[in-house]
């Protein structure tokens, strides 16, 4: 283990490295402040105006931040070092871009040992910003709230929390980031609707579950802290005891087999398990997904889950590499390590999510169980660490990221389409989808594309994502898990096809056409383009996600 590079002081040159976060904060405050200057009145026209202006500010801001981050990342265009120009405007832009890209992803570089500025962070940021952008676009017409200033501010702060979650390499920051993500989401899920019973219930359950899970997570962290503090001489003045790399270093030096550390790790997995909604820490998700409004459900089910996965990956691979084991579940031979634990969880999640989805009658609830099942697939990307080959480990994380991107695009599309239906029909049971094809063929086709992509039908993106992540798991000798995954995919076809049957075959209760509001339609189109593009030509983003290299010896 090489010595951990720690920047002890924050420097001015670090500012571009956290530029997206700074911009998000500024935007959030801007949204909150600008709402004051709107016309506040109770008539519908004025409210619509207020929501529209807050929402458009947020959308435009998020779009800009997304573009800036994309430029900064250098994934589209990396400024060559020798680029120079004498003409004034061009020179100005080149200099701006150069300064921007100087804060781009740099492997192994952490701010104060707490904030990694690597490709993983960068890709994760783009995922969250994109998800937030699409979600906000959904809300422009959906109008889930009467207090738009607070609503969008909370949404932005939650996005900020996710970015920090993905970047954190230190437990205190990780905890704060989780809370910064979660607390706004509790409010978004439960508080902003017109005080319906289900919304309040969903918010309450989300809050209590989240708070209890944080307590579990914190207990685990305190145990790990105890482990590291115990391993060091008492007189040493160190403040890096909660940094992932430091923990790994101490654990390696200790033989890596302390029960305190192990117990702490299990608690931490449980605490993060709530964010990614894996069995048995999943039970909040169907209730919250059903109770919250469609755009918020889309946001919770995609961005929040993605952030959880990135953090889980970081914690396990950077703080607990000494406890990695095999992906086998055979108790006698080589069960052990968090890989086996995750394999067990993934197994349960796949089975439980897919089977419990079968009898559902509410579309949001059905998709909630479906997304629990997807969490099982996503775990396979982390389980790929069971192999010791760096190339296969890299494949694991890149397949995880690829799956996340596809999943975010598909799920936002699916929830968006459902939102359109519920806006027009007034309910979100499967029956409300009946005969959608006769009421709006375009919407029906879009929804069908998202559903088929979730089911993993080629050539849509969902297929390649599943295929890629199965390959990664297979390389890591998790063959049995891949078989379970394939089997449950077949089970899942049943409920996805039930949705399609309702859409295309069953007769509608009324033949009144369903209108797609403009901005929601825009979201759906963006999502569907991504779904097709990533499915047919995965190489668009594969080189990017492959940048997250796992080096040997970590």
């Amino acid at each position, binding site marked *: 283990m090489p010595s951990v590079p720690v920047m002890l002081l924050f420097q001015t040159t670090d500012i571009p490295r956290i530029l997206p976060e700074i911009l998000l904060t500024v935007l959030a405050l801007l949204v909150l402040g600008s709402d004051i200057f709107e016309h506040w009145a109770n008539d519908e026209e004025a409210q619509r105006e207020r929501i529209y202006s807050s929402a458009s500010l947020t959308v435009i801001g998020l779009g800009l931040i997304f573009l800036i981050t994309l430029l900064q990342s250098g994934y589209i265009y990396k400024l060559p070092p020798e680029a120079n120009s004498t003409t004034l405007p061009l020179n100005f832009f080149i200099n701006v871009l150069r300064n921007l890209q100087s804060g781009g992803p740099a492997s192994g570089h952490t701010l104060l040992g707490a904030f990694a500025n690597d490709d993983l962070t960068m890709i994760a940021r783009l995922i969250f910003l994109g998800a937030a952008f699409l979600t906000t676009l959904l809300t422009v017409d959906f109008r889930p709230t009467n207090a738009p200033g607070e609503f969008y501010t909370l949404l932005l702060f939650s996005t900020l929390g996710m970015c920090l979650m993905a970047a954190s390499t230190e437990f205190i920051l990780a905890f704060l980031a989780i809370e910064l993500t979660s607390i706004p989401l509790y409010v978004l899920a439960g508080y902003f609707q017109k005080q319906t019973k289900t919304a309040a219930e969903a918010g309450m359950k989300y809050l209590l579950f989240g708070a209890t899970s944080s307590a*579990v997570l914190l207990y685990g962290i305190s145990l790990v802290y105890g482990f590291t503090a115990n391993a060091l001489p008492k007189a040493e003045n160190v403040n890096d005891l909660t940094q992932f790399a430091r923990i790994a270093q101490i654990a390696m030096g200790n033989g890596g087999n302390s029960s305190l550390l192990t117990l702490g790790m*299990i608690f931490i*997995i*449980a605490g993060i398990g709530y964010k990614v909604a894996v069995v*048995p820490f999943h*039970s909040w998700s169907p*209730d919250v997904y059903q109770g919250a409004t469609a755009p918020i459900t889309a946001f919770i089910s995609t961005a929040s889950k993605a952030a959880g996965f990135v953090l889980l990956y970081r914690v396990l691979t950077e703080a607990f590499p000494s406890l990695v084991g095999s992906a086998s579940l055979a108790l006698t031979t080589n069960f052990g390590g968090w890989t086996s634990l995750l394999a067990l969880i993934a197994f349960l999640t796949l089975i439980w999510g897919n089977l419990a989805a079968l*009898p559902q009658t509410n579309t949001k609830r059905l998709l909630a169980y479906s997304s629990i099942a997807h969490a099982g697939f996503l775990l396979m990307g982390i389980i790929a660490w069971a192999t010791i080959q760096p190339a296969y480990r890299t494949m694991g994380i890149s397949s995880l990221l690829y799956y996340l991107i596809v999943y975010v695009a598909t799920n936002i599309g699916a929830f968006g389409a459902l939102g359109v239906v519920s806006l027009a029909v007034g309910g979100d049971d499967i029956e409300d989808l009946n005969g959608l094809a006769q009421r709006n063929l375009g919407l029906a086709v879009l929804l069908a594309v998202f559903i088929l992509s979730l089911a993993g039908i080629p050539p849509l993106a969902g297929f390649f994502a599943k295929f890629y992540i199965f390959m990664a798991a297979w390389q890591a000798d998790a063959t049995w898990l891949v078989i379970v995954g394939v089997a449950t995919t077949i089970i899942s076809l049943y409920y996805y096809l039930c949705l399609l049957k309702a859409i295309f075959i069953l007769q509608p209760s009324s033949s009144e056409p369903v209108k797609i509001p403009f901005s929601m339609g825009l979201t759906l189109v963006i999502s569907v383009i991504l779904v097709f593009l990533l499915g047919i030509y995965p190489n668009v983003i594969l080189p990017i996600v492959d940048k997250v290299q796992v080096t040997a010896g970590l």
Partner: protein
Amino acid sequence: MFFLHYAWLIPILPLLSFILISLTPIRHSKQMSGWLAIGLMGVATIFALGLMGGVTQGLRLGEGSAVTSAHTPEQHAPETSENAEGKHGKEAFVFPEANVVQNFVWAPTGNTSFTMGVYIDPIAAIVLVMVTITSTCIHLFSMGYMAANSRQSRFFSFISLFTAAMLAMVLADNLLLFFIAWEIMGLCSYLLIGFLYERPQAYRAGIKAFITTRIGDVLMMLGMVYLYTQAGSLAFGMKDGQIFNEAFLKQLALGKNALGLTHATTIALLIFGGTVGKSAQFPLHVWLPDAMEGPTPVSALIHAATMVSAGVFLVGRTYPIFTADDGTALLVVSAIGAFTALFAASIAVAQFDIKRILAYSTLSQLGFMVAALGIGGWVAGMFHLLTHAFFKALLFLGSGSVIHAMEATKSIEKIHHDDEYAAQQTAQDIRNMGNLKAYMPWTFWVYTAGYLALAGIFPFAGFWSKDEILADAQNGHLAIYIVLTIAAFLTAFYMTRQWRAVFFGEYRGKNPLIYVNPEHVASDHHAAKDHGHVAHTDQHSSHSDEPHESPWTIVAPLVVLAFFAVVGGFFNLPFAVPGGHWLSHLLGQESAEFNFMVAGISLLIALVGIGAGWSYAEVFKTAQDKDPFEVSQPGLFCLLNNKYYIDEFYGLTVGRISDGLALAWSWIDSKVFDKLLNGTGFFTLFISRINFIIDDTLLNDGPDGIGNNTLTTGQAMRQTQTGKVQDYLALIFAGVVILALIYLYRM
């Protein structure tokens, strides 16, 4: 060898049927759950037979799990014969080497770790065969007998769990696992006695059984703790650090504790406390007769064949500790056993309930076994345990068949509509029977086989095993011998009385002596139906006045058991013929040679008893006739009929004291401990919450549907989402705890 490697599957199979029946939609179909349980029991029986086949060939499977056949039992026997041949108690008792030892680390305890696993020596293998065969028969019997009960699936799940626990107990490789299985059996016994919980008598009997046996269990647990403090281990086996290690036993026999007893004696007596509770020895015998409130298959399986003999098996299992020192413990054992044998036999003389007579007979026979162990007749005790299990199960099932037929007659059916409990009691009264051999030939013949075996008539199973006990007793324990011989006489007497009253003479059931139920509440709920009266509704819509033969699911198991009741004795013929002493050799012990005088006396006594019983039972002409004994000796008869008033005595003494203590405790509790104790409620509450999720969702209002397809599984999973946030929170912690346990025990 396959069966040796997979011996641990034997208890798993019934456990599996328990899990499947209680957790999956199979429970909605009585037929499916019944056949599932029977099928898995059948497989377990095959495994047990295969295992015994391996064991008789002397195959061994050590911890290295390679099969060797180094020692055959025949070679092994002479080595140990010196030990067993010498005076009991002087030399340490030595078991034959175990055939299969497989274990895994269960819990780390300081430096060492506690292992759990299977430990199979010849006696375990044989008892396994006995348990699986009787249990399979009884499962099959229940299929017909319980057919009309709406909770038949639950019955099968309980009885499967019970069998699993019993088998696990027999296979246990240490006393703790033994005790765990023992407690599960106690729980099942409680659940099954109180199975017809609509009847106050039934649930009261269940509670009584549970509490009474718990008294013994507490003593046994103390003994275990004591043993653990001495040995640092509870593992069976003769190696270093195991409890039958020779050096360790010597040390136990030498050290004395504050009471002036040696460690060995104290431990042995405490462990024997468990036997007194479980095998219903005096003074904790009171629960067993009341336990007959349970359905008849339960009486046959748990309260005749298996669980009650578990107590005897416990003594047999820990026998080296009993014999480690001068035999003080054995003296107590033999005294209690012999006393119980006589005491219970005398009560049986004055009973009228067919099942109660058998219950007291069971007590008495258990007393025989315990006494046999107490006088050093380990093989004789175990032999009697095996034969008794078969013929007593047979007798109980036969009585069940009789009761089944009696309940279907018109005169009792009449009472049935008004008060089921009274109807059942009336149907069980032998005064209301008579001449059943004409109506139920199959039942008559198999019952006769069981009866002759119990009475000890040559060449039925009971003769050989009882004779072996008597031969051992006659060899130096004259007092025990005399007591047991009198008990044997009484056994022949009361069994003949019962047999004749039931099967011969006039049929008296047309004008029965109707039982008056003191607790009858006039209502027309019929939920507490004991068992199957399919006949009432389906086959015979017109009830006949006379009883009828039972269906094949009831008769077939009887025939199987009757076979063993007839030939069971030949496994340990006390002659030097080929096949003679087979059991003794297999068990690596020497057993007593055939003693013509003892055999002659006991046969003679049995015949006299039979003669007396025969002439005596003639007197029943109508159901209202008084017992001649009651006419001649009303006081004594009343004493016996009321079981020496022991229950009343306990009620007045122990009950009063505990009432007083309870009062005092409740005062202290309310004043002092209330808040403290509330805290400990946490764990229970947590468990109950988990339990609530499982119970309320999986067990109660699961979906209908017979097929176990994925959709219904999905439905079942869906039901776990209760909508109560605290259930979700409980799930988090259950998840963490389970994951932590899995992780920590990964090795």
